């Protein structure tokens, strides 16, 4: 059984990635924070007895399922919203939080490189959001979470062949979009290695 300290360390290690991955999937930061919190609580409550080695797979599975639940609820809510034609919210009137605008400092010294990297990342982020959900899921688990094909297939509930296909299509789609923006494969690989 994992200790509370081990759980804390594990969550500290994955929380930022989990948040970003969820944002790419649901495109709403508030919803993403709720989803990540739900996933953390489910892991702590339902799998408290599991060893810490099993946490990465369990957490990813919980996170993906929580995202799916969110989409299901969203679908039903959208249906009702359409039926009842409710009024839209005016986001312009919302209070701005100064904390929202403060970013953690970037350690890179070269401003040109910094700019190129941030532009590239912005393009990848947009492209990732446009990917079909299964391709995005496979890409995130396989390359970002650094899981092998078997683990990814286990979490996604599909065959290893499907994982390979999804990953390949995802990388091709992202590379094509980046090439359209004038960013070749070599540039991406170099930037990725530097970061």
């Amino acid at each position, binding site marked *: 059984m994992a200790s*509370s300290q081990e*759980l804390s360390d594990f969550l500290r290690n994955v929380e930022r990635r989990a948040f970003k991955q969820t944002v790419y999937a649901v495109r709403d930061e508030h919803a993403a924070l709720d989803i990540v919190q739900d996933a953390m609580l489910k*892991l702590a409550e339902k799998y408290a007895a599991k060893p810490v080695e099993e946490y990465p797979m369990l957490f990813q599975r919980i996170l993906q399922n929580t995202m799916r639940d969110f989409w299901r609820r969203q679908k039903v809510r959208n249906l009702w919203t359409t039926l009842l034609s409710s009024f839209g919210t005016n986001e312009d009137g919302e209070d701005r939080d100064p904390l929202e605008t403060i970013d953690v400092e970037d350690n890179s010294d070269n401003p040109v490189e910094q700019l190129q990297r941030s532009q590239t990342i912005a393009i990848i982020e947009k492209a990732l959001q446009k990917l079909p959900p299964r391709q995005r899921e496979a890409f995130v688990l396989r390359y970002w979470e650094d899981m092998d094909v078997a683990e990814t297939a286990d979490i996604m509930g599909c065959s290893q062949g499907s994982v390979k296909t999804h990953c390949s299509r995802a*990388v091709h789609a992202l590379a094509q979009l980046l090439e359209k923006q004038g960013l070749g*494969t070599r540039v991406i690989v170099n930037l990725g290695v530097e970061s």
Partner: protein
Amino acid sequence: MKPIQDNTEQLQSEVAQGKAMASLLDSQAQKLSMRTLKRLEESRMLAVQRHANKASGYDVNQNGTLTHWLSWSQHPRLMSMGVLCAALIVGLTLTQHYSQQNEFSDAFLLGSELPPEAFVDRGFEPWLNAKVEL
């Protein structure tokens, strides 16, 4: 042989590209706003607290009360199963009790020297009482 090599090279290239993109995304994930980081920290603390409560066998309810996680009140399914079993036992006992009563009355009627029609006759009981008084 050559197509297999090409395929392997292509696969390696895909993996390298994928990892490079993921690495860039990962660097971006480290630059979250303070508000987001605070919220993630709160979520983490809450999860760790729940984990610690589970490990100690106690849980804090939403209203702040401390309960043992093995207590009956935490398991509504077990509670409803218990109530159902109790109702079943009471029902069976009552059924058996009444059926036994019926059996006794049937045995009395059959074992009596008087014919069963005598007990149906409304005038029989007053006549019998008058006879006993005499």
